[in-house]
């Protein structure tokens, strides 16, 4: 910010875009679902990896306790 300006709001570039309600509504219809699918598929991959190691490596090595 130039030193002679007192607020970032002086610059158009620094101010958030105005939200268009219709556009926001359309984005918000898909964003939560997309986030859930992305996070869900990654966690599912981790869980599958854990289950494979547990059943194919850990259990065949015998009981321990």
């Amino acid at each position, binding site marked *: 910010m130039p030193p002679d300006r007192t607020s970032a709001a002086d610059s158009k570039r620094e101010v958030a875009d105005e939200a268009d309600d219709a556009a926001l509504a359309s984005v918000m219809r898909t964003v939560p679902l997309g986030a859930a699918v992305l996070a*869900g598929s990654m966690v599912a991959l981790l869980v599958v990896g854990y289950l494979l190691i547990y059943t194919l490596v850990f259990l065949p090595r015998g*009981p*321990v306790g």
Partner: protein
Amino acid sequence: MSDTPHEVHESRILRTELLWAFGVGIFVAASLSMIVFTALTINVNPPSNVERIDPKTLHLSGEFAEQNLGTTVFGDGTVIVRAIATQFMFVPQCIAVPANRRVTLRFASPDVIHGLLITGTNVNTMVVPGFVAQVHTEFRRTGDLLMPCHEFCGQGHSEMWATVQVLPDDQFKPGADGRVSCAKR
């Protein structure tokens, strides 16, 4: 009265978060059930023995005196292995165990913290001076398994390892005193 767009967005986000929490809840419940199930059916538990022993005198008398180290089979068929982890060796250097039988392994240290694992099995424990480390297991395959120290214990740490010889039933023959030594190979 209709909801404002802001409230609609919030309710969608809340619904997604609840769905996620439900999925996580199912996973946590399934994991815990599996742990409990394997603990009850095939004895898979975290080793959790807390038993004190004086590290200054453990080699002088009692369970970890030299004549008691190694593998002993008791009258009721119980197999107990006792070994000392010390800088920088395991005593004894070779441990004979039977295949497909429950074995109790007991370790103690007179000096510093050691650790050990037996390759190809789930045996993995720390050996802390002052405590007896105890692990129950069953060896499923015969052959020689490496048992290295896996906790850095000093300059000779990398030289500290022993062999676990898993013997089939017909070769695992205790002597009159119940002791079993490694077969010469």
